[in-house]
C-alpha cells in the first residue's frame, strides 16, 4: 500500500531576521500507509503550517518530509505540489465558475490519466458513495455547505492521492451537517483505506475519525502527546457515547486544555 508519510525533525521559523516566530519545532511523526492520522491543537499551533509543508505550498526551515521514500520537503527544496498529496482546504476551493462534474473530473483529465468517459463514470460512482446524486450539472454556488465539502473530498480522491490532506475541512459546518459529512468520510475511508492527514481543533471529531490523534502545542509548535484511538471500525455516531470514547476524550482533553489556556494567555492569534 502507498502513502507512508515520514516527518523528520520538521521546523519552520517565520521571519527569522525579524519577529522570529517559531511555528514548528522538531516535529517528528511516522504515519504508516493507510493510517487516519488527526492533528489536533488550538488555533495558531502550526497545524496548517505543517500541512502546507507536506502539500508543497510552503518551505520548511529545518527537517525533512518523506513520502514513500521520496523527499517531499526540506529547507531550500523547490516547492512541488502535486496530485499525490491532495488537499481539502479549510474554506473550500471548488472552482465556482465550473460545474460540479468539471470540478471533480479536472484532476485526472488534466493529468491525462483518464478519458472523459472514464472520469465521468468514476465521478458519478464516488459522488453516489457520499450520497450525492444528480448534482453534476450544478455550479458549486447552488450547493449546501455539506454538499460542497463532500464534492471537494471526492475531487481530491479522484486523483488517487497517496495521502489526503484535510485542513479543518468541516469547520464552517453546523453540528448536524458535520456529523453526516464525517460519517461519509469514514465510509470512504473504510471502503478504500488511504493515508489521511486531518487537521482539526475539535476534540470529538479527532477521536471519532482517527487511528491516532496527535496533540500539538502552541508556539513553538511541537508534538505534546500521541494517543492511539483503539475504537474498532466501522464506527458510527453511537461511538460518541461509548466509555472508551469518553476516556480518550478526557485524556486528550486535559492535554489540549493546557495548551489552549497557554495560547489564550499569551494572546496568540491564528498564525496561518
Amino acid at each position: 500500500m502507498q502513502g507512508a508519510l515520514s516527518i523528520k525533525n520538521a521546523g519552520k521559523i517565520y521571519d527569522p531576521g525579524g519577529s522570529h516566530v517559531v511555528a514548528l519545532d522538531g516535529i517528528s511523526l511516522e504515519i504508516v500507509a493507510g493510517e487516519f492520522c488527526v492533528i489536533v491543537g488550538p488555533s495558531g499551533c502550526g497545524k496548517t503550517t505543517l500541512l502546507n509543508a507536506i502539500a508543497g505550498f510552503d518551505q520548511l526551515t529545518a527537517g525533512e518530509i518523506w513520502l514513500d521514500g521520496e523527499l517531499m520537503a526540506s529547507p531550500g527544496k523547490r516547492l512541488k505540489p502535486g496530485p499525490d498529496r491532495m488537499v481539502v482546504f479549510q474554506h473550500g476551493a471548488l472552482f465556482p465558475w465550473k460545474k460540479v462534474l468539471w470540478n471533480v473530473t479536472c484532476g485526472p483529465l488534466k493529468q491525462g490519466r483518464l478519458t472523459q468517459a472514464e472520469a465521468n463514470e468514476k465521478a458519478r460512482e464516488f459522488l453516489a458513495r457520499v450520497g450525492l446524486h444528480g448534482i453534476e450539472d450544478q455550479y458549486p454556488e447552488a450547493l449546501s455547505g455539506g454538499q460542497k465539502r463532500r464534492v471537494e473530498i471526492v475531487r481530491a480522491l479522484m486523483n488517487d492521492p497517496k495521502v489526503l490532506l484535510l485542513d479543518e475541512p468541516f469547520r464552517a459546518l453546523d453540528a448536524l451537517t458535520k456529523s453526516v459529512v464525517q460519517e461519509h468520510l469514514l465510509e470512504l475511508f473504510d471502503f478504500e483505506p488511504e493515508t489521511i492527514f486531518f487537521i482539526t481543533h475539535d476534540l470529538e471529531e479527532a477521536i471519532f475519525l482517527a487511528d491516532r490523534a496527535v496533540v500539538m502545542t502552541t508556539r513553538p509548535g511541537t508534538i505534546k502527546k500521541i494517543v492511539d484511538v483503539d475504537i474498532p471500525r466501522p464506527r458510527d455516531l453511537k461511538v460518541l457515547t461509548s466509555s472508551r470514547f469518553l476516556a480518550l476524550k478526557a485524556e486528550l482533553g486535559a492535554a489540549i486544555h493546557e495548551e489552549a489556556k497557554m495560547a489564550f494567555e499569551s494572546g496568540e492569534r491564528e498564525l496561518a
Partner: protein
Amino acid sequence: MASEPTITKAEKQHGKTPAVIRLWRLARSPAFYQGLLGVAVFFLLWYVLVDLIGLWRFSGLPKLVGGIEEWLSPDPVFGVSIFTAEYYRHIVASLFRVFSAFFAATILGVAIGILMGWRRVFFGLTFPILEVLRPIPILAWIPLAIILLPGRELPIIGLTFLAAFFVTILNTLLGVQAIDKVYFRAAQSLGFTEWQTLWHVIVPGALPYIFVGLQIAMGACWFSLVAAEILSGSAGLGYKVWETYYYVQFPTMVSTMATLGFFGYISSALVRIAGHRLMRWRANVLAGV
C-alpha cells in the same frame, strides 16, 4: 420585501432565466417604476423651469416642447429630425467608431491586463508607464493622434479607444489580483499546467472584474467620442453637438445629446447582458441571493 423575485429551479441549476419571467419580474419590480418616475420628474422640471417660467439663466435654454417638436418634425427647421437621413448618418458614424474602439480596447486591454497579473516581469515593465499615460486627458492626445494615425477616421477611433483601453487593463489586472490564492493552490495540487491554470482559473476568475471594467470602458468610449469628433468634418453625434452649438441650433443640439445618452445606455446594457451570459455561475449572486 414582498416583491423579492423567487428563484426558479431551472435558474438555480443552470443560471438561466426565461425571457418571459424576466419581463414579468421587470414589470413587477419597484425599480422599474422608480426609474420611469425619475425620468418623468426630470422632464417635468425641464418643462416647468424652461418652458413655463424661464427664470434667470434657464431662459436661454432650448424649450422642451420646441426640442421635441423639432426632433419629431418631418420638416425640421434646422434640418435634422428622426425623419431625416442625416440624423441616422450621425448615429451610424458614431456607433461604428464606438464599437470598433470598444472592441479593440477589450481585446488588447484584457490581454495586457491578464498578462500583467500573470507574469510579474511584465507587470514590472508596464505598470509605471501605464500609470503615467493613464491620467493624460483625451483632449491632450488629439495632436499626437493626428500625427500618428492616417486619415480622418482612424485618429477619432484611436482617441475613442484610449480611455477604454486603460480602464480595461486596470480592471482586468485587479480582477487577476483579486482571485483567491487558494484556487491557485488547488490547481497546483490537481496537476494543472501553467496554461491550464491561465485558461481555467485566471481568465474565469478575473471575469467579474473584467466586466465591471468593460461597462466603465463603454461609458469612457462615449464621452471620449464627443471629444474625438471635434476632428470630424462631417459626421457623428459628437460632431453634430459641436456644430449645432456653433450655429446656435439649440433644439437640435439637445436632441443630439439625448440621442448620445440613449445609445450609451443601450450599449452599456448590452455589455451587462453579455456579462450575465458569460457568468452563469454567478447568477444567484447577481440576482441578489
